[in-house]
């Protein structure tokens, strides 16, 4: 079958992109979703705290998803559920598989990548020890508890203080398990401040910074884990080992954008984010292929995912309309967004001022905890933005908004630079 826009993934990014594409005048859209319902990982995030920016109220994950599912329904967005995209060719033909339809293909004019991310497993950490039952990534445990109503363990240690780990520390406690410690190898948490307060502090769960798991014991089921302090180079310090008896180890050690399909199309990935390199329109190096949400870079708040994805949906719609109008994409001037002190990456990585609206959002994350920094943006050597912050931390995404008027001052050979000063 043929479609103007095919969106891979029906989580918050895919849904918001679809709604925006419809609103921008493209009707022939399909979302391909592997789960039996849309909503993505939000469906297992039954805690509240979603939607404060988008809806100015506090929703649970499924409630937030439901708002977008309803919008998509109102706009007659077609969603193929329980359908797995197994391959995408360079000419944008998506091979799908489902119980109802068997194997079939979708030829799309434009594709929006919205596949989300996955959790880094124990193997990737190369944590020594046995390999018993009882080691789960935090999201897997969340699925067991929140979707299936099953408790994966009673005495828990959590490695990594990413948001899912923090949320699961609280959830496991509420379900009657004892969470003995959350260990974080870095000297700061990778999660949101509010989650540390609400999920750990409120339940007296200790957060052990600069600490990691150096051994896992138990042949059949986890019996204990050994924690140790680490030095500045993150190497365990001998003599600081502490054995904690437990039956479960949850891992919340980072999320990895899931870009196997993107790579099949030939999309260039950033080694820093693990997601596609995109321009201001969230378009990848392959014309007509856009990306948004956690497949692009891991977000902290779903509200930003929705906002970003709506932007991708809008640009995909514009791309499709231009195709039908047969107006070729003129070769516009493109400027690189450079990262300076403290800034790990930016999305987008390049900007074409001619394609920008009045305001263009650039999102980024910092590489360390910085107190009282100034976030600065330079066009060439001209500082166009300077904003004081009390604190910047790796767990929280930052953003700056570029004005079209400033972008228009860029000359050949110049770059846009985002960095922290006063650090």
């Amino acid at each position, binding site marked *: 079958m043929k479609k103007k826009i095919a969106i891979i993934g029906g989580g918050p990014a895919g849904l918001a992109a679809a709604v925006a594409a419809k609103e921008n005048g493209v009707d022939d859209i399909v979302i391909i979703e592997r789960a039996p319902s849309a909503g993505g990982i939000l469906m297992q995030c039954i805690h509240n705290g979603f939607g404060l920016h988008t809806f100015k109220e506090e929703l649970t994950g499924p409630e937030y998803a439901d708002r977008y599912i309803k919008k998509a329904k109102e706009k007659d967005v077609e969603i193929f559920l329980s359908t797995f995209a197994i391959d995408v060719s360079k000419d944008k033909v998506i091979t799908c598989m489902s*119980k109802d339809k068997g194997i079939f293909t979708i030829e799309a004019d434009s594709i929006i990548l919205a596949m989300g991310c996955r959790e880094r*497993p124990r*193997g990737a950490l190369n944590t020594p020890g046995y390999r018993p039952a009882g080691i789960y990534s935090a*999201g*897997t445990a969340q699925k067991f508890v929140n979707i*299936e109503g*099953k408790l994966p363990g009673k005495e828990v240690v959590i490695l990594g203080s990413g948001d899912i780990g923090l949320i699961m520390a609280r959830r496991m406690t509420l379900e009657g398990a004892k969470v003995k410690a959350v260990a974080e190898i870095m000297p700061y948490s990778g999660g949101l401040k509010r989650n540390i307060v609400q999920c750990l502090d409120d339940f007296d769960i200790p957060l052990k910074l600069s600490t990691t798991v150096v051994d896992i014991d138990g042949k*059949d089921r986890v019996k204990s884990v050994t924690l140790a302090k680490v030095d500045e180079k993150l190497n365990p310090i001998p003599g600081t080992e502490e054995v904690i008896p437990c039956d479960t180890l949850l891992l919340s050690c980072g999320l990895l954008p899931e870009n196997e399909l993107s790579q099949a199309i030939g999309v260039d990935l950033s080694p820093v984010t693990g997601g596609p390199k995109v321009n201001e329109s969230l378009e990848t190096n392959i014309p007509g292929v856009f990306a948004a949400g956690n497949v692009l870079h891991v977000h902290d708040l779903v509200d930003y995912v929705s906002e970003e994805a709506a932007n991708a949906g809008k640009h995909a719609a514009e791309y499709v309309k231009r195709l039908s109008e047969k107006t070729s994409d003129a070769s516009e001037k493109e400027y690189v967004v450079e990262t300076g002190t403290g800034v790990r990456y930016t999305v987008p990585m390049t900007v074409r001022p001619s394609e920008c609206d009045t305001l263009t959002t650039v999102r980024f994350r910092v590489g360390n905890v910085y107190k009282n920094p100034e976030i600065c943006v330079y066009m060439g050597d001209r500082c166009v933005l300077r904003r004081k912050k009390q604190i910047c931390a790796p767990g929280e995404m930052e953003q700056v908004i570029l004005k079209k008027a400033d972008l228009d001052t860029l000359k050949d050979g110049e770059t846009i630079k985002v960095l922290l000063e006063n650090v």
Partner: protein
Amino acid sequence: MNTVDVIIIGAGVVGSATARELSRYDLDILVLERSSDVCEGTSKANSGIVHAGYDAKPGTKKAYFNVRGSLLMEDLSKELDFAYKRNGSLVLCFSEDEIQKLEELKARGETNGVKDIRILNKEELLRKEPNLSKGVVAALYAPTGAIVDPFGLTIALAENAFVNGVKFKFDEEVISVAKDGDEFIVKTAKGEYKAKAVVNAAGVYSDAIHNMVCADKITITARKGEYCLYDKKVGGTVSSTVFRLPGALGKGVLVTPTVHGNLLIGPTATDTPDKEEVCTTAEGLSSVISGGAISLESVPSKSVITSFAGLRAHSDQGDFVIGESSVSGFFDAAGIESPGLSAAPAIGAHLAEEVSKKLAAREKENFIAKRKGIPSMALASDEEKKRLIEEDPLYANVVCRCELVTEGEIVNSIRRPLGATTLDGVKRRTRAGMGRCQSGFCSPTTIEIIARELGISACEVTKHGKGSEFIEDHK
């Protein structure tokens, strides 16, 4: 008391190969396995290599069975439908002085009957394997070296034995073996069995079993080997299996593609008094990586997806202990360390011949030689995929996204002869959970499917047998 003709102790690759070969005969055969599935010991955690056979000292059992096993393996892979690939192997040397050792190894290989081995110079070598360390000087190249799916091989042998009438009893650890007249009495915690012949294929415990019966004692030391397994994205780092010149404790750290397209680096070699010590260690993993770094220009450390350790059964006899022991009717397959996986088909055939002669058994007329494995959606062409889905729509329901394993394959792995009963069992039969997310995504669904198919609750589903349950029982 159950009386049979032959009891085989251990359902690893050697026990399973022996069971399969013996099932050609009109014999009542019972396999006793202490774990909950076949392939739960050494057979599941090794390099997955079919050695060409240049390494073992001429005249040893290792050399004899290695070369023969290696010759049998390709046909066996077709007959029993498991993954096998002749990718060739290399032994690297890093100085001019060592070329002489390569020559010796070549001569040894030729004595052992290994075909087409030759020495490659640096240029030829780097053209063949551009990611090798630029410090290599030359290598011995054996085109008959191959890689195999160790789980696939073991499971295929056991399934085929089962189809040919061999009985398997799991969770039955043998606690005593005694000769009583012309018979053996084999006791487990669950029961007592009588047999005319016993085959000892008990891996790292083959000394304990042997010593229960024989006056001439043997000692088996568990020699731990740690490995790192890398993402398929870097599976093409090398196409051949890459060894270095062997040292005292074995062949050193090797670098190889696996039959499934991952990159594998390992093993270390450390003797351990604890025969259950299958844990990895910080030192071990770091020596795997530094060992890999000698052979490779750069080790793709960021792409590691898991690490594991296996125990080889190292015999104090310095060679495999194979054949009828000092006690009539008691047959050993002990001390089967490397090249044990390569040798297994030949060991199985040899023991079957010895045992069948001893019992004057006749060959069956209705032996089923062929076995069909589980169809793989990941490997199927689009046409085959269509056909599979038409036959069973469950083949369209993807459960493991990393390895593209469907519900159809998982159900097949449970329902087939000697089917999976555990998550690890499903994993080793289908690859569900073996990919880069290491079962984070699929394990809740797989657990649900196992519970449904076996008619048990999810709380009763285990990773690898009793004690390894995943879910707390609320009752």
